[in-house]
């Protein structure tokens, strides 16, 4: 009751907050569904090699990000976004999704996060 009173008079703000939370939740759900779907499709193959056959099997939005990263070698979400003309936050989501799928690696250097396919030293 106290909480209701505290929020009273701010219905628009509350709705906006709820919408924001739901959007975030939806994004996370999308990532999880995509990972599950992909794991099912690839469960017989080696999942962590980003070769051209894997690129062909990716959904369009992730393929664009993955091909751009292959071209750049390593990049931040911002650098990828410059090439794909999509928002940085969108690319960040896709890159993290590709990391979770095992195709990319991520490394923090200072305040920036760098994504790459494979380090030369690991070859």
């Amino acid at each position: 009751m106290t909480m209701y009173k505290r929020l009273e008079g701010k219905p628009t703000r509350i709705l906006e907050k709820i919408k924001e939370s739901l959007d975030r939740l939806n994004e996370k759900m999308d990532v999880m569904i995509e990972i599950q779907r992909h794991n099912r499709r690839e469960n017989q193959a080696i999942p962590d090699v980003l070769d051209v056959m894997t690129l062909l099997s990716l959904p369009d939005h992730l393929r664009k990000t993955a091909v751009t990263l292959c071209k750049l070698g390593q990049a931040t979400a911002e650098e990828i976004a410059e090439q794909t003309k999509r928002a940085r936050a969108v690319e960040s989501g896709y890159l993290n999704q590709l990391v979770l799928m095992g195709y990319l690696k991520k490394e923090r250097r200072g305040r920036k996060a760098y994504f790459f396919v494979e380090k030369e030293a690991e070859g």
Partner: protein
Amino acid sequence: MGKIIALHSYKGGTGKTLLSINLASTYVKREKNICLLDLDFRAPSLQAAFKTNDAEYWLNDYLNGVCEIDKVLIDFTQKHGRSGRFLVGLANPTTEGIREMSAKDRKWEMRALGRLLSLKTSLLNDMDLDYVILDTSPGLQYSSINAIVSADIVLVVTSLDASDIQGTQRMTSELYDLFEKKTGILMNKVPAGILSSRKEREKFYKYFNNLHKLPILEAISCSCDVLRAGGTCIFAEEKPEHSFTKAVEKIATKIERF
């Protein structure tokens, strides 16, 4: 900045190699600096056309990380007395070389893609070339898809064979479109009668433009002279007035505006 052009086809024997060589030669005559690379590791052919087998390093070595690309390239500029630079990179034609390439795993192919993608910097930027032309192996193979991903423009060579046309349509929707490549079709070995009049020609272009949903850059007439030469004659250089040379010149001009 220069462009990378990949010549690809669904089936073998469509004329990719002959067109690659003559397209390269046409650009060299136009004072463009060119590099022609044989990416058909299962059936290398450029060594036969350029009558050489004495490469110190092959493209196989470059993709294996044994050497850099400049070690692979053979300079044919002076031999052919052209205006632009004419560099050629050969694939290892020995049985051992072909066997070794066919046994590569997915991780190697992934690194090979990285090496091919870096050609944009090493050949177009550092060596200041105008065009890099990739002659690929037919169908859906690692080496050809790697080449397509690395290219700016894809030229698909197709004949009038029904299976070839169907395969090309499939590759358009399942390969070239997925990688968002600028793609053009070259109809090769078209029986001369089909293209006899202007009206017939227009009808032919309209039909295949609609069928492939891609621009038909040129319809090249079937020529006994080309077959008779057996792939050893560079028409653009040796027969400048031949209809095949004229067709390749039109293709070169259309690519420049593509």
